[in-house]
């Protein structure tokens, strides 16, 4: 500690090391949050169901999404990334997951919401397996932190079924 520059260096290094430790503890504190999120999705209607070239089924649908994800937020949460995926089984694949819609929730106040929307991304199958298919709509969320570990989880909503026949709309 024999010169000004030396002391300044020690202070800067020590301050940054302590800051890193604070961030580790802050991230660890997220483990003490036990959230209770809830969500509901209703399919308003199927807008279209076609077999497109080169032979893959494509669905277009409108859905109502209601959710209360406020309990997922902690003091260390930067934002919530959520998406809805359609999940189903085919002879070719044991699990197909197709992302239909996603959103970023920047603050706790916006985490309780209702939205009616068409699927943002195309619901396309590998093949033509979707007629009369039963599928789940799963709401996934990624809790993106200000610092440290990101937590991800999901809520499975089952009981959806596609129409038996192809149709224009």
């Amino acid at each position, binding site marked *: 500690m*024999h010169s000004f520059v030396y002391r*300044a260096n*020690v202070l800067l290094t*020590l301050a940054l090391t302590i800051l890193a430790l*604070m961030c580790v503890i802050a991230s660890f504190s997220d483990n003490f949050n036990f959230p209770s999120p809830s969500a509901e999705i209703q399919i308003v209607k199927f807008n279209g169901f076609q077999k497109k070239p080169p032979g893959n089924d494509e669905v277009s649908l409108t859905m109502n999404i209601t959710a209360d994800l406020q309990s997922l937020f902690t*003091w260390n949460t930067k934002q919530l990334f959520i998406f809805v995926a359609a999940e189903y089984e085919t002879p070719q694949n044991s699990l197909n997951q197709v992302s239909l819609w996603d959103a970023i929730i920047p603050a706790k106040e916006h985490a309780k919401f209702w939205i009616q929307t068409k699927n943002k991304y195309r619901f396309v199958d590998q093949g033509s397996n979707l007629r009369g298919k039963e599928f789940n709509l799963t709401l996934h969320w990624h809790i993106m932190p*200000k*610092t440290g570990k990101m937590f991800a989880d999901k809520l499975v909503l089952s009981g959806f079924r596609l129409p038996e026949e192809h149709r224009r709309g």
Partner: protein
Amino acid sequence: MSLIQDPILFQTSSPSRFRDLFTSPMDWQGQKLAELWMQVLLIVFAVVAFATGYITGSFRTMMLIYAGGVVFTSLVTVPNWPFFNRHPLKWLDPSEAEKHPKPQPAAVASKDKKKSSKK
């Protein structure tokens, strides 16, 4: 204007006390004190910042309190304040050193008359 430093007495020719805060060396007791205060202050501010941020649920609060604490600590412990120089070292006056020259090793074969050990 160049700074003339006496290597033995560690005195600078510039009379500015403000300048001394940045350039003058700190005595040993002061250095120990500065190190201690630096560590204590930073840790105390870190704990207070974390506790306040966690309780109020505001990450921003934690960062602001800690940043303020770092600035405060740097103002207290980095410049060479007078209270860090309360135990200055008493160096031997050069004229005294000349009166008592360093003894030469006796085992050397040649018994040369001792020369003054002036550097």
